């Protein structure tokens, strides 16, 4: 990467073991990291474990980080993705079962419940996507990475990424078809 890495200075300070820099980096990166892991794993506890593991690696690498060789945020996402997929490989069935159990079809009584039910349904639909499609959607939509960054992280071309995203959204649309009919215009269940 030839562009200036916005995290480079902060990372250098972390490498010098400055407590303020450590706190700043955690504040800057942890929420997005946790979101990524939670959406990919569908399990908040496992997501926390992944976040901790990623930060342990940051602490170990910070003093050796070389500016200009890679963008820190991309490296961070790559480490997190690898850890998530390690866990998904080990616990795939258990994780999917757990998410499936969260799809409670109980009738919603008010807006808060509707929102909560919708949240769970989206989470379940995301979990039901093929892994590569979910990865593409989470990185591009939720993590708001550029298409180039997402494609680089996933090791695919922009065209292949676009194809993955199209299939991901099409599958989601199908999975959420019932919800669209009931909630899309702010309506409630009959």
């Amino acid at each position, binding site marked *: 990467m030839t562009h200036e890495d916005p995290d480079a200075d902060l990372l250098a300070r972390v490498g010098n073991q400055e407590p303020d820099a450590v706190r700043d980096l955690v504040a800057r990166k942890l929420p997005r990291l946790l979101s990524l892991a939670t959406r990919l794993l569908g399990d908040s506890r496992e997501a926390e474990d992944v976040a901790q593991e990623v930060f342990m690696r940051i602490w170990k690498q910070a003093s050796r980080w070389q500016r200009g060789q890679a963008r820190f945020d991309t490296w961070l996402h790559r480490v997190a993705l690898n850890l998530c997929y390690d866990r998904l490989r080990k616990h795939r069935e258990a994780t999917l079962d757990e998410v499936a159990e969260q799809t409670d079809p109980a009738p919603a009584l008010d807006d808060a419940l509707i929102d909560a039910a919708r949240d769970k349904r989206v989470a379940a639909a995301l979990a039901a996507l093929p892994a590569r499609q979910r990865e593409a959607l989470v990185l591009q939509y*939720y993590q708001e990475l550029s298409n180039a960054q997402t494609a680089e992280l996933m090791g695919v071309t922009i065209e292949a990424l676009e194809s993955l995203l199209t299939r991901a959204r*099409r599958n989601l649309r199908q999975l959420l078809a019932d919800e669209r009919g009931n909630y899309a215009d702010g309506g409630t269940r009959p």
Partner: protein
Amino acid sequence: MTPERFRSLTEAYGAAPEHWPQAERAAAQALLERQDPEVLAALASARQLDQFLAAHQVAQPTPALVSRIIVSASPASRWNWLRCWTLTRRPAANPLRGWPGQTAPSFRIKTFAAALGLLGVCLAGIVTGACLMSLPTAAVSLPARAPSLTELSYSSTAFGGSTQDWGNE
């Protein structure tokens, strides 16, 4: 840009222009301004799915998680298992206070002091045990006249000295 390409774009990237490829963004927005019904329908469909995706909220990191991660940045916590053990059992309100200038060294000092104390207790136990072992013997073999300091030699230890005294009896 054709309406077909616009539909493909929104089907892949959603309704938000900032998610569209930068190279095609201007052309797509120009097409939108023409108010083509097909284009508007594609945009509305993509926006609907975006709204559902946006409904999926992820909890913010808990203070406990933030604390654990900040503590893990301390160099000592990465090599000293004892430190990790200690910290996980008494999480401080401000775990980074003084790190790395104070927390890690003070912890090492405390650990060293504790180890030193333990060693002292052990040594004291050994010395006390040795003294207690020697007391009955010394009581039995106590000479009528205790040797003066000038008479003390290697042979006048608790064992060596008493042998000579027995011979005199």
